């Protein structure tokens, strides 16, 4: 057998650089052709649904007159904890599996415009986690409210402020996954990348523990406080308004992706 046997003749010259659509299709194929993606999605969907129902049940069994009633949207937010970790891993793996195996060299040889690779990976992981996040957010909301409606602690989706807060719950998975893509591209090691995402999410929150007024002032800029603000039915008054908190929330992954875009072209692959 020779190399010529199945050649379909010389390819027509294509006067186009690498096209965005091609790079997206390639990254889409990569994302959905490994099992880890499906396992991560399973964790990201199942754990919040279960947790939100459990947290809501705990809320509904609180003794009467035990202080102010909890935010009825809190179960939905709390339940995202494991899902957040799962999508952080999904985002980090986008680059780190390629760096750890050496596959990144095949990728960059095929697409020398490395920022196009970064953009495509962010786009496919972003689309997947955004859809997953919203499914999870509305699913968790429905379950939690079903439990809370017994003791009349629940809220309806039609109540002002509720749809936005639930949408924001879903957005958090997207935000964390994008942090993962950016930091994974920078750190290039899976364990280090996951540690970086968790660190960036949690460590700045220590600032919020500083003595007033510093704690509150700095705390407003942390990912965790911003996330809490945009997902609460009754946002805290000492932090940024939800609209500004949303900007803060999106600024973190934007910064991570921007930093990745800078270093990715400067380093040898």
């Amino acid at each position, binding site marked *: *057998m020779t190399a010529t046997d*199945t050649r379909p003749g010389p390819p027509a010259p294509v006067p186009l650089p690498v096209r965005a659509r*091609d790079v997206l299709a*390639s990254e889409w194929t990569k994302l959905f*052709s490994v099992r880890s993606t499906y396992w991560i999605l399973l964790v990201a969907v199942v754990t919040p649904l279960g947790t939100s129902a459990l947290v809501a049940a705990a809320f509904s069994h609180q003794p009467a007159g035990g202080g102010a009633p909890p935010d009825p949207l809190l179960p939905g937010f709390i339940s995202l904890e494991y899902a957040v970790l799962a999508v952080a891993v999904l985002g980090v793996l986008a680059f780190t599996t390629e760096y750890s195996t*050496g*596959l990144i*060299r095949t990728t960059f040889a095929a697409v020398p*415009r490395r920022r196009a690779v970064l953009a495509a990976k962010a786009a496919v992981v972003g689309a997947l986690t955004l859809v997953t996040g919203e499914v999870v957010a509305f699913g968790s909301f429905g379950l939690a409210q079903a439990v809370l409606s017994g003791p009349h602690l629940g809220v309806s989706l039609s109540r002002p402020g509720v749809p936005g807060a639930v949408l924001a719950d879903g957005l958090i998975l997207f935000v964390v996954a994008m942090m993962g893509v950016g930091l994974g591209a920078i750190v290039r090691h899976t364990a280090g990348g996951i540690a970086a995402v968790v660190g960036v999410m949690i460590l700045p929150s220590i600032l919020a523990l500083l003595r007033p007024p510093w704690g509150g002032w700095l705390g407003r800029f942390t990912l965790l406080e911003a996330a809490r603000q945009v997902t609460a039915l009754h946002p805290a008054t000492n932090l940024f308004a939800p609209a500004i908190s949303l900007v803060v929330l999106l600024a973190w992954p934007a910064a991570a992706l921007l930093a990745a875009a800078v270093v990715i072209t400067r380093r*040898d692959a």
Partner: protein
Amino acid sequence: MIEVDHLVKRYGTVTAVDGLTFTVRPGHVTGFLGPNGAGKTTTMRVILGLDVPTSGTAHVNGRDYRALIRPLRQVGALLDASALHPGRTAEAHLLSVARSNGIARRRVAEMLQLTGLEAVANRRVRGFSLGMKQRLGIAAALLGDPPTLMFDEPVNGLDTEGIAWIRDFLKALAADGRTVLVSSHLMSEMAQTADRLIVIGRGRLIADTTTAKLIESSARNDVLVRSPRAAELAALMQARGATVKTQDDGALAVTGLDAPAIGDLAAGHGIAVHALIPRSASLEDAYLDLTDQSTDFRATTPERPHEVPIP
């Protein structure tokens, strides 16, 4: 066509490629030879736009690799056959590569067939042998039907059958009019595959020649002579300008006189000759001679970490 011009690549204080200039032309299998750590892989990475050169240029088909339009249609490369996601199937891997350059899905099936991987197309590469991974890497390199191909140590770790397959394959690609550059640290392998050789050591060009010329130019073309009156014959040969070395077993290694001349000389003096064997240097010897010279640099250049030799 691959053109490397005064290429220098330093990693910190380590100079991996030190002013390398060579051209790889279509229609031949060109061997890229050098000991481990000579700079072969680094050079290939620079050619592929993966590493940025410290100075100098590397052009493929007249352009910088990063400026190529849909590069896989112009250059196919296999650097590391193990660079695969273990959980992805062979077909999905090829499909992801093909899609990045707008290559039709049909080509994936064709390349799987060409490399004999159809039966394992839907198996995850985790369980692939090195030989299967090499075939998959070659399939990926050929996806875009490129006129220029580069393979880094493609026969490493392969069994005899796999080596023969790759050798025939490379020759067929070159016969097809393509530019084929194949690196190896094994001269014996290149002797059977490559028509042209680029030999480097310590990041510098040692030889850029044909395989035949490299053997010819070797200093080790000599005649082995055995005789009961060896000392006497040696003196006679030296008187006629030959260089004679006495081996441990008493045999003479003669350069400067060919076998018929030695035979006639011995007969003329009534000296019995028990063996008269013209020996030509193997390509391996020629290579060792060349790289011996390059290792002389060791005394004057700072020590560099060696790659782990691959058996």
